[in-house]
């Protein structure tokens, strides 16, 4: 047991670690924002339920059956390219080892992709985390209300 500044650090037993891991997993699982971990090639290694829900219109357009038939991981850029290839371009030209690639990038979903309850636009923030095997962290949120407000404001200006 190490001693830091006079205070002993408690050892973490396997049961405690397991509980903490389960709690962390549940926290991410229930997050009201889409969370995706991918590598620089766009292969998705982790995604929470909200990410799946928000990206579903794009995944379905790619062809979920086609997605399901392959053994390799889901491809983030293939999914995003359905709405716009601009994001993939931004990812490709980012030359840093870490940092923010895009921040609140609005991705509008074409009307043909929308279903009842599905978003009309997504907000995408992506960061590259240095020294991480799967270093691409992507946050996706529903930007539908923001899009509607933008359209409303555009009509006011006329």
């Amino acid at each position, binding site marked *: 047991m190490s001693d830091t500044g006079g205070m002993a650090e408690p050892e973490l037993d396997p049961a405690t670690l397991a509980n903490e891991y389960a709690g962390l*997993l549940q926290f*991410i*699982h*229930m997050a009201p924002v889409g*969370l995706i*971990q991918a590598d620089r090639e766009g292969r*998705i*290694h*982790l*995604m*929470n*339920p909200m*990410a*799946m*829900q928000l990206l*579903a219109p794009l*995944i379905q357009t790619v062809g*979920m*059956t086609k*997605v*399901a*038939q*392959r*053994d390799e*991981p*889901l491809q983030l850029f293939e999914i995003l390219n359905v709405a716009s290839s601009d994001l993939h371009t931004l990812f490709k030209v980012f030359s840093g080892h870490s940092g923010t690639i895009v921040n609140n990038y609005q991705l509008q979903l074409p009307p043909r992709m929308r*279903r*009842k*309850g*599905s978003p009309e636009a997504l907000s995408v923030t992506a960061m590259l985390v240095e020294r991480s095997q799967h270093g691409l962290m992507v946050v996706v949120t529903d930007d539908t209300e923001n899009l509607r407000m933008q359209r409303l404001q555009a009509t006011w200006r006329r």
Partner: protein
Amino acid sequence: MDLPDRLDAPDMLARLDGLSPELLDELPFGVIGFDAEGLIRRYNRYEVTCAHFAAADVMGQHVFEELAPCFNNYLVAGVFDDAQATGAPLDHSMPYVLTFRMKPTACALRLLAPASQNQGEGLRYVLVDRAQAAQA
């Protein structure tokens, strides 16, 4: 008893309702049966094995709010709601991506519900076939 051996077997809803828990455990796909309030009443061994939840632990949980938040969206829960609103029986199949433990996992789903006039008595079902997606 002629057990349904495929996710797309005919007369699935009636056949599931007639199966004992032991026979439900022999099916080659996951079965999650829930009542009109969304509370789980049936959960077979396939799902226990794949999802790593003991059947005793999930009985009585809300299927969308507790057991499977990844189904709590317009793609799955919303489809059940729409069917209930129209009163028509539901039999809808689709490919899907599960996010159990955040690992994207391709699968095939089949959503079943009785006609609305029977919904006070009958169960709704989400059937999950992880192997079909891999074999397709």
